């Protein structure tokens, strides 16, 4: 397999998927930042990450400021808008480019391009509010695609939205960045966790239709973000940071895919230890939502097994490529 991707190996017995294994070879980028001057990290982080550079940058700034014991709360508004615009772009990518081909439709490329250009042009609060209005109108005219999600899967733990101070108690073990758990269990982050309180999402969730619930949750998240473009107070709830004692800072930032955590331990003015926990680590944990939901899923043919897996992967929206293998039982 290629380094940097997720290898998903499913065992299929001709009737259902009987086992699933996740192997990650993602490089420990954060570890490579140890020893660098702290100021340089702020320049490096947005260059390192392709998909959510604004969220990564905001998390780096907030955690560094917290590690230095600086008050960063007053400056959270500007990154909050950038983080929200980035998340909207990621959701639209998912809905217009990623999802249609799996539902037997063409990708809606020109619509996506139109939104992408509008998102890029937002320069101030008034433009953000105007775009929020357009987005809300578009969402009102969109019909959430129906999905033949007949599988009912048992409830799994959804990651709550915690403050940075609350997070502090949960990050400890050396392996947390690669294998994060919440209260000792793998947990799911992302649109489902964030919008589990939405009435339509909660109903689907209670019935065990988690694929459909995530789809509805993604629209709910976009509606929330569209309203947030006109209400900065709402958006700043997506960013938080706290000082964890001497020279240590923790930041949590919400992204389209879920909660992103950065923790910096300073060693003088250099990085002593840098920990980044990305949403994909939660959802593709070896005992996480992907494995739990694909295991025992009925599939009459190999093609159906592949399609079930691809839909679930997309539903959980990893930020890296996945290599899928089906093995006969």
């Amino acid at each position, binding site marked *: 397999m290629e380094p940097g991707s997720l290898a998903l190996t499913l065992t299929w017995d001709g009737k259902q998927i009987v086992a699933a294994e996740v192997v990650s070879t993602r490089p420990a980028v954060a570890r490579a930042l140890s020893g660098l001057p702290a100021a340089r990290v702020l320049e490096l982080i947005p260059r390192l990450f392709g998909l959510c550079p604004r969220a990564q940058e905001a998390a780096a700034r907030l955690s560094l400021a917290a590690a230095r014991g600086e008050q960063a709360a007053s400056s959270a508004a500007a990154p909050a808008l950038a983080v929200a615009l980035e998340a909207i772009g990621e959701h639209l990518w998912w809905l217009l480019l990623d999802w249609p081909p799996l539902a037997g439709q063409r990708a809606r490329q020109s619509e996506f391009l139109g939104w992408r250009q509008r998102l890029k042009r937002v320069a101030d609060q008034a433009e953000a509010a105007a775009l929020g209005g357009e987005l809300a109108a578009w969402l009102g005219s969109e019909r959430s695609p129906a999905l033949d999600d007949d599988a009912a899967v048992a409830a799994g733990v959804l990651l709550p939205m915690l403050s940075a101070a609350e997070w502090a108690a949960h990050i400890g073990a050396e392996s947390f960045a690669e294998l994060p758990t919440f209260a000792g269990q793998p947990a799911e982050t992302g649109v489902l966790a964030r919008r589990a309180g939405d009435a339509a999402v909660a109903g689907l969730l209670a019935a065990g239709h988690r694929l459909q619930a995530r789809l509805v949750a993604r629209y709910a998240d976009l509606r929330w973000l569209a309203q947030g473009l006109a209400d900065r107070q709402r958006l700043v709830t997506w960013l938080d940071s706290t000082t964890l004692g001497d020279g240590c800072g923790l930041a949590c930032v919400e992204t389209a895919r879920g909660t992103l955590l950065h923790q910096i331990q300073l060693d003088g003015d250099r990085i002593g230890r840098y920990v980044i926990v990305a949403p994909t680590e939660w959802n593709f944990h070896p005992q996480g939502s992907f494995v739990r939901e694909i295991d025992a899923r009925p599939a009459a043919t190999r093609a159906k097994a592949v399609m079930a897996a691809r839909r679930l992967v997309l539903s959980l929206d990893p930020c*890296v490529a996945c290599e899928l293998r089906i093995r006969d039982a």
Partner: protein
Amino acid sequence: MCLALPCRIVELRPGDQALVDVAGVSREISLALVDDVALGDYVIVHVGYALTRLDPEEAEKTLALFAELGDGSWSEADVAGA
């Protein structure tokens, strides 16, 4: 975490497609989301699409950064997943 490793455009193809070089392996990607891409330019790729175009100078800086942070082997290979 998707790493933003610059990929060089080695061939332009009809229908807004292009070939990029990823650690010696060619991959076809779509240029539909980026403007004015020329042969030899660098782009950042995600699931079959070029996400952003980089100036050569900017690309060199980023490549140097990846070389500095890793031994180069994982960072180049990771672009397939980026």
